[in-house]
């Protein structure tokens, strides 16, 4: 048999084509129901061990919760089938629903829930409060457990449904018995996704497979509650550290979802007909300045009040999130969109951007040119921009403000120093947290105002702390709203921290990826999404 030169050429071309392009095409066909997401670098797998957001996303994927908040912020049963409370409001009894099982096939028991509650209570403020008030937490049988309280306690279900800070993820008893300062080593939960350990590449990618044994609730999905139906077979989180490369990968259809593209690349994403920006966190993040209460000049309340007058939130928004549709202002201590948001005691500074008044207050505070050192995280662009803008605003009114550029890890270590600036201390650092989490004065360390025991900046107000302590014992939402107003009045008098703006961080996705769950908070669940 003779082979012509033309046939040989055809053969060569076919071989070349087989060698190159089809590899990708074949992969796409095989992985039709695989979603690739760029979520960040998942390094810590234990959601009780760290407050890192990405670890909480991981927790949402593989673990389940007793209760979940719906889109109206009402707690709905999730793993729990039925629950009752005694007439004196002291004994809560919970019964787990049928068909709950761990990824290793063993059934979920009440003992697992009890151990998880105790571990959660070691580290999360909401859990700590629950344990503090509880007289008894015990399992009655395989499916029933009880929490008994010393006094009537009305906040129980809200605390158990906590979706800010660390949600109460239910772990296997043997995992939950580890101290919370030691990481759980097995990634075995009872949630809608199973962690695929064999495909995990630390620092590079992690893989989740649909848990085929998971039985979703019958109700439609609503934020963290309802049926957690998984419509894809596999989800891979790729860690692409370079944001430009990540956007390019999205454009080239190598990934389907980018959690947080940088703001300067929004125009490129919006210009691509196959991509869409979508703010999945409805309320966004509140950016704020933590102020060192222990050192000059901010140990004087007038200097702190000066900051409130100085900060023009709309101007800050320009440097944090240049597109105004992805942000706004936040003046209520309880965030801009929570049940407790209010306008109490905000009238006097509300507009901000009043440098003359700020200057006057610094003078009244006896400011004598002390250095105001702003710890500036250079590896977090929004925080970096906001810090620089704050320094420039202070310098304009004659304050000796200086930036101390450093990475976030350096900042984390430096902020521990309570001493004066000259001894390695600090005056201000900028950070953020979900606006939604501000609706929970018990679950968020932001609200602590007990001096040196409080979070960094160590704000102190006995009056505020006394009011905060009442929160857990207030019976109704209306009463809590009233208490929120009182707390806010005190807060803005002593100025525990200063809000800079509220920014939404839209995610970018390919249009084939639909039905992603939007939530009030910043945690991103993966159930419900579809890949067309």
């Amino acid at each position, binding site marked *: 048999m003779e082979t012509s030169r033309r046939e040989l050429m055809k053969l060569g071309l076919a071989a070349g084509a087989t060698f190159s392009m089809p590899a990708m095409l074949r992969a796409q066909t095989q992985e039709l129901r695989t979603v690739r997401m760029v979520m960040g670098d998942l390094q810590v797998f234990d959601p009780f*061990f*760290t407050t890192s957001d990405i670890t909480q996303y991981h927790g949402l994927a593989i673990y389940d919760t007793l209760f979940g908040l719906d889109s109206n912020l009402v707690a709905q049963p999730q793993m729990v089938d039925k629950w009752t409370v005694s007439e004196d409001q002291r004994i809560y009894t919970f019964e787990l629903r049928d068909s709950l099982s761990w990824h290793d096939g063993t059934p979920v028991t009440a003992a697992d829930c009890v151990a998880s509650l105790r571990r959660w209570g070691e580290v999360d403020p909401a859990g700590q409060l629950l344990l503090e008030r509880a007289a008894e937490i015990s399992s009655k049988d395989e499916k029933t457990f009880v929490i008994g309280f010393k006094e009537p306690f009305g906040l129980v279900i809200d605390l158990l449904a906590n979706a800010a800070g660390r949600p109460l993820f239910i772990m296997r008893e043997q995992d939950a018995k580890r101290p919370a300062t030691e*990481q759980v080593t097995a990634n075995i939960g009872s949630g809608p996704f199973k962690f695929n350990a064999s495909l995990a590449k*630390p620092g*590079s990618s992690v893989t989740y497979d649909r848990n085929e044994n998971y039985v979703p609730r019958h109700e439609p999905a609503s934020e963290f509650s309802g049926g957690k139906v998984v419509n894809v077979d596999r989800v891979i989180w790729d860690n692409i550290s370079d944001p430009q490369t990540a956007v*390019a990968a999205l454009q080239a259809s190598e990934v389907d979802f980018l959690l947080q593209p940088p703001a300067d690349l929004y125009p490129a994403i919006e210009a691509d007909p196959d991509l869409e920006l979508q703010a999945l966190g409805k309320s966004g993040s509140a950016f704020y300045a933590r102020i060192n209460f222990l050192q000059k000049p901010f140990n004087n309340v007038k200097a702190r009040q000066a900051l409130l007058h100085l900060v023009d939130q709309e101007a800050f928004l320009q440097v944090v999130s240049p597109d105004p549709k992805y942000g706004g202002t936040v003046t209520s201590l309880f965030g801009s969109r929570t049940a407790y948001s209010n306008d109490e005691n905000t009238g006097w500074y509300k507009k901000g951007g009043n440098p003359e008044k700020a200057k006057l207050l610094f003078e009244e505070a006896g400011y004598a040119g002390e250095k105001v050192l702003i710890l500036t995280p250079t590896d977090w662009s929004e925080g970096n921009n906001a810090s620089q803008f704050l320094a420039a605003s202070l310098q304009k009114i004659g304050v000796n403000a200086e930036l101390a550029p450093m990475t976030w*890890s350096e900042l*984390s270590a430096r902020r521990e120093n309570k001493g004066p600036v000259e001894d390695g201390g600090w005056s201000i650092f900028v950070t953020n947290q979900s606006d939604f989490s501000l609706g929970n004065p018990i679950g968020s360390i932001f609200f602590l105002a007990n001096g040196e025991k409080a979070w960094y900046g160590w704000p102190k107000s006995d009056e505020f702390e006394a009011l905060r302590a009442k929160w857990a014992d207030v019976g109704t939402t209306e009463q809590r709203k009233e208490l929120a107003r009182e707390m806010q009045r005190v807060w803005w008098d002593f100025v525990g921290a200063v809000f800079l703006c509220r920014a939404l961080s839209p995610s970018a996705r390919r249009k084939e990826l639909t039905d992603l769950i939007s939530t009030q908070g910043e945690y991103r669940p993966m159930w419900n999404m579809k890949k067309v």
Partner: protein
Amino acid sequence: MEYEEGVKALVTYILRRTMSAIAVMAMVGAFVFLLLRLAPGDPAAILAGRAATTEMIAGIRQQLGLNDPLPIQFMRWVWDMLGGDFGNSIFAGRPVLELIAQRLEPTVSLSLLTMTLSVTVGVSFGVLAAWRAGGLIDRTLTAISALGYSVPVFVIGYFLIYFFAIQARWLPVQGYKLIADGLGPWFMHLILPTLALSLGFVAFIARVTRASTLEVLTEDYMRTAAAKGASPYAMVVHHALKNAGVPILTVIGISFAYMIGGVVLTETVFNIPGIGRLVVDAINNRDYPIIQSVLILTSGLYVLINLTVDLAYTLIDPRIRY
């Protein structure tokens, strides 16, 4: 007799260099250990997350043994390392050597492809430019070399991604496929990173090759070879290139060492999970065991490359003796 003495001298030389390599690695280890501990930043704070409290961070520090005095931490690390245990990653919780092994294939693949391309193209360009010195080819190649030498790797990387991956869709933007997954996908994923990383080295090697070859081409023996009717190929390859080989080899050795820095950038731009990315992430997270181990092993590799280059001189120039 003379041969035996030569072998003995060579073995002594290798032993001496190996001992000095161990000393260099020990010094690098001590220096890196101290530098990391003295630099600001705390792995416990990063592990605990942005909203962590002082108590949480203190608990993690205690658990990781970071509160122990520095000499104790150092001795513990050295002792474990002498037993072959390079420690566990603070974040991944897995043995450092296992993590390094996982990342070795992408980095070795990228480095070898880059060196192959750089040496082949760089030496060819250099020789061609020297042979036609002052002509159009020489000037064109010199201009290309200057460009390759001065444009940063990441700029070339983004440029290549834009044209070949996003616009043309011929090649993947990012990522890496293991050789075990097929040579085709492996090669496709390495084309752009290799091109981006090679350009600078091609320029470097081409410039040195041109200069060395040009010098040799003016020697008397080259005129003699030409007078005897040697072909241009024989003149360049057998006479000029061999005699210009020592500086070219030196440059190739240096390029290998410099490539370690280039690989870090290239792996970041093209999202290749290699040693470079491992180190960058470890530095950002203050994952001490990974940083220390990679730097020690890299310094060992650096010394090994230098030793190999030194020994290779004897093959090119028999006059060189150790």
